């Protein structure tokens, strides 16, 4: 008798579990705010995908397409890796750079795909190969609003020499640009190599206060940051 009651209870609980946990989230709005003081995000890639997919993972080497994004802001390769822009993969929701303090929203719909995990990447300017990243977050399934904060990563593919010379192609040393118009010139270079060539959480930039010399073309009063660098608000419908 007791065993029968236990079995009934167990069945009832399992049945409840099966009927009350939705498989995926459906419509998900992803609002991204650049919460840095002086760092720009290049075009963002925002995608819901299968659990095993990773655009990047800390401790692993960067893919060639991740490198192209981190060194030059080119998200075309990573977008193709995800099967192209579609209902739940949005490329460049801000229509260009996302300035410090600015926000943009990607409206993803996972209804057709059933995708459950969310990734976000964009290069940081002015850096050599820094990027903002969310790595395969399990999207909450219950309707509601959820807030997350993201860290800055280093792709580990280019030495952080902190020299603004227009170098944005993969393998070309240097920083493409300082969009705020607040970069310097004439630096001698900070790091000459990357001691950690896997993707890792960025150690930050050094910068200096000499706009026409010193080691770095970055301004230590403007271009430094502390994690986190982005605020993400998910609205699950």
């Amino acid at each position, binding site marked *: 008798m*007791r065993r029968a009651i*236990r079995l009934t*209870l*167990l069945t009832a*609980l*399992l049945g409840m*579990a099966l009927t009350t946990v939705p498989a995926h989230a459906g419509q998900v709005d992803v609002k991204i705010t650049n919460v840095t003081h002086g760092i720009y995000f290049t075009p963002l890639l925002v995608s819901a995908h299968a659990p095993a997919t990773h655009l990047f993972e*800390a*401790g692993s080497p960067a893919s060639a397409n991740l490198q192209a994004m981190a060194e030059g802001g080119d998200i075309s390769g990573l977008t193709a890796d995800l099967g192209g822009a579609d209902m739940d993969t949005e490329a460049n929701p801000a229509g260009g750079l996302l300035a410090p303090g600015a926000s943009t929203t990607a409206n993803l719909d996972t209804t057709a795909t059933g995708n459950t995990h969310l990734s976000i990447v964009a290069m940081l300017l002015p850096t050599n190969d820094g990027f903002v990243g969310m790595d395969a*977050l*399990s999207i*909450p399934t219950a309707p509601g609003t*959820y*807030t*997350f*904060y993201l*860290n*800055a990563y*280093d792709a*580990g593919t280019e030495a952080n020499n902190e020299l603004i010379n227009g170098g944005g192609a993969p393998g070309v040393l240097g920083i493409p640009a300082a969009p705020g118009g607040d970069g310097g010139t004439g630096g001698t270079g*900070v*790091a000459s190599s990357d*001691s*950690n*060539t*896997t993707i*890792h*959480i*960025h*150690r*930050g930039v*050094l910068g200096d206060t000499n706009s026409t010399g010193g*080691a770095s073309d970055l301004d*230590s009063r403007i271009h*430094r*940051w*502390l*994690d*986190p660098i982005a605020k993400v608000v998910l609205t699950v419908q």
Partner: protein
Amino acid sequence: MLIDFMRERLGYVLFLAGAVLLAGCGSGSDRVVATYAVTVTNAGANQPLSPPVVVIHREGYDGWTAGVSASTGLEKLAEGGDAADFIAEANLNGNVETAKIGSGVVAPGGSTIIQLSAPYSSDVRFTVASMLVNTNDAFTGVNGVVIAGLGINEAATFYARVYDAGTEINLETAATVPGPAGGGEGFNAARNDYGFVSIHGGMVTGDDGLTTSALNETHRFVGPVAKITVVRVS
């Protein structure tokens, strides 16, 4: 916020797990044993991590508390990477189930897996601690996070920031930094810093003007330095 979400999600799983456990009880005193695999990835730039310690425990054990003086065990871990006393202190606490150290130093970009088994309870927590060896007394880890809601094969991931043990002044000199950047002294029983655990303010280094520092800009950090994933294996 990630942790908040995981807690929320785990809380739901916990409810189900607890309910099923109740339904399965009645036959005797057998306690369910849970096995956890904890992966510590060194996600920092250039700070090797001392062999990490993982403690499985309940409420009532704190490896450290921000604003409070470090134990001698934590001081030894944070100044010299020696975890023996930290583990001994944990094992003296009645709320600790088990404590285990990793197999070696975790280099930047590297990982180690520490597997532990402990009786399951609805209050199972875990704590992880490891020294950043190219510092005076910096350590990283997670502090008493509830993992009771993890179902079998479920994982939770945490990005661990850096704490200052507050037991040794941050001179950054070769003589006081025990890691490869300094080769100096590890633990010293003298306490000459502010005397309480805090979140670390970061390294200055010679590249930013501290001429007596043995460190360079690659040893800095501005956020988390470790990715810690716990999976309930069984």
